[in-house]
């Protein structure tokens, strides 16, 4: 095939891929009468940013946003700290049960959310953490942890033992060597892992839906997912909300794409 043919094919195939995004974006810029108008148009003559302002009064999206940020940041921080310690231990120590643990972490990726949700609901209610931001953050942390441990385990393995031994000989404690020598070396990998954790929590819907119930604790995906069915007519405001909600993941991903993709595929192929 000629180069030009391939390039043309690439661009043509990008159309169906981008279609849902474009249609959603186009809708988010339309006044309501034109949303429910036949035939539909791509670019409204009365293009407006009003849906982006109106959605905040239509649903408490400001609160949802703060909640989403809180949960995603807390879950990311906890996942990195707990996962980092665990990944370090698995990569640097020989101990009984290590292989089994790694296998269990891998298999827990396949655990259906549906298989833990009811007892989790009961447990959180018992602990007073049902319908709370802290409870949801902890749940997100633990569902992200197994994969993050595997990722970090892989990154720690890329640092030669000698580097660490040198630090130990110079009088560092194992944790000191981790902090001063190893972590700086795997910084790109840490970044990719943090991005993975942040996106995982930010986008998460199932647990956020079933473990919260009041508006003051809901996250954005719950706001969107729950009201998709109920407010069918305000597609422009819902589109605006979905567009705004997607901006942080898209921007973060574009910034860190190379490390992220490399880290993930290296983990899977290894």
């Amino acid at each position, binding site marked *: 095939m000629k180069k030009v043919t391939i390039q043309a094919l690439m661009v043509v195939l990008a159309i169906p891929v981008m279609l849902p995004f474009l249609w959603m974006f186009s809708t988010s810029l339309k006044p309501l009468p034109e949303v429910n108008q036949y035939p539909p148009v791509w670019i409204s003559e009365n293009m407006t940013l009003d849906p982006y302002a109106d959605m905040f009064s239509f649903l408490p999206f400001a609160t949802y946003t703060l909640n989403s940020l809180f949960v995603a940041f807390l879950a990311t921080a906890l996942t990195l700290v707990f996962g980092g*310690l665990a990944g370090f231990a698995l990569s640097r120590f020989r101990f009984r049960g290590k292989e089994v643990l790694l296998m269990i972490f891998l298999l827990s990726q396949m655990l259906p959310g549906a298989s833990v949700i009811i007892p989790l609901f009961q*447990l959180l209610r018992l602990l007073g953490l049902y319908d709370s931001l802290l409870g949801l953050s902890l749940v997100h942390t633990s569902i992200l942890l197994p994969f993050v441990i595997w990722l970090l385990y892989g990154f720690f393995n890329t640092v030669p033992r000698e580097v660490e031994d040198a630090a130990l000989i110079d009088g560092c404690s194992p944790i000191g060597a981790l902090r001063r020598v190893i972590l700086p070396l795997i910084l790109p990998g840490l970044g990719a892992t943090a991005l993975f954790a942040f996106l995982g929590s930010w986008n998460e819907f199932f647990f956020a839906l079933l473990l919260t119930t009041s508006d003051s604790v809901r996250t954005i*995906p719950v706001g969107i997912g729950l009201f998709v069915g109920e407010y069918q007519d305000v597609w422009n405001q819902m589109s605006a909300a979905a567009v705004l909600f997607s901006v942080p993941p*898209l921007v973060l991903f574009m910034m860190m794409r190379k490390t992220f*993709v490399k880290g993930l595929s290296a983990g899977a192929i290894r």
Partner: protein
Amino acid sequence: MRRSTPYLLLLPALVLTTLILAFPLVQNIVNSLQDLSLMDDSGDWIGLGNYVEIFDDDLFWLSLRNTLVYAVAGTILSLAIGLGFAMLLNMKVGSIGSTVELLYTLPWVVSPVVAGFAWKWLLNDHFGIINHWLVQSGLIAEEITWLGSPETALGSVIAARVWQFYPFAMVMFLAGLQSVPPVQYEAADVDGATTWQRFRYVTLPNLAAVTSILLPLGIIWSFNDFNMVFVMTRGGPINASMVLPVLVREYAFVEFDLGRSSALSIVIFALLIALSTVYLVIISRRRVA
């Protein structure tokens, strides 16, 4: 260094995952043997009653069928498209390739809720752009109610799922393609291999390892997927697109029957173990042969 150090380092992660992943799994078994309602936690022991109810429920069998169709068809289509796109991107055509690769990856980055929402609006029977195009071009005479009719609902949800999942396969396949030693293609060329033979005897064998991860992982993840169906159809119309994870929620939070819901989640777990076992057996047989 003391012997306990690694265990101490692992402790926080272990405590949390035990509490939130392992404990619920065990508690679910206890739940599933009780007549437990959402309103009242003190259930009576009813043995396998909940399981009997589930296996007597036509909706369970319909959901099981739908879940299998959703998981298998969705994953195979995602892998096929992912492989196609990866091969396209693997042809070196200059800087445009990197931009296109980014565009092709984007559906994977947004929340499943956004994906479901975007597709639901795209497929809207009267105001969606798809029906408009199809009617305009004369391909269909009347608007199709994609999500509102039992014949098309599940297929539409699968389309959205494929759109969101193929990029993962694409990224993995691309990494796999880029790790094929060029020598192998050169050898094939020396032997006068056709394009098809190059694909069949060099590319595919090199992707076997990636595929053997992607296929089961994709099927298992899709089997467990709640989001797309819930956002797009909630399992409707008249349960035509109901899948097992959504049914777990139905039992618990619509019918308020925690016991039956727990039993169903155990059934799902058992089915997954069965699926994984079948897969492991196939893989190990192939290795031996």
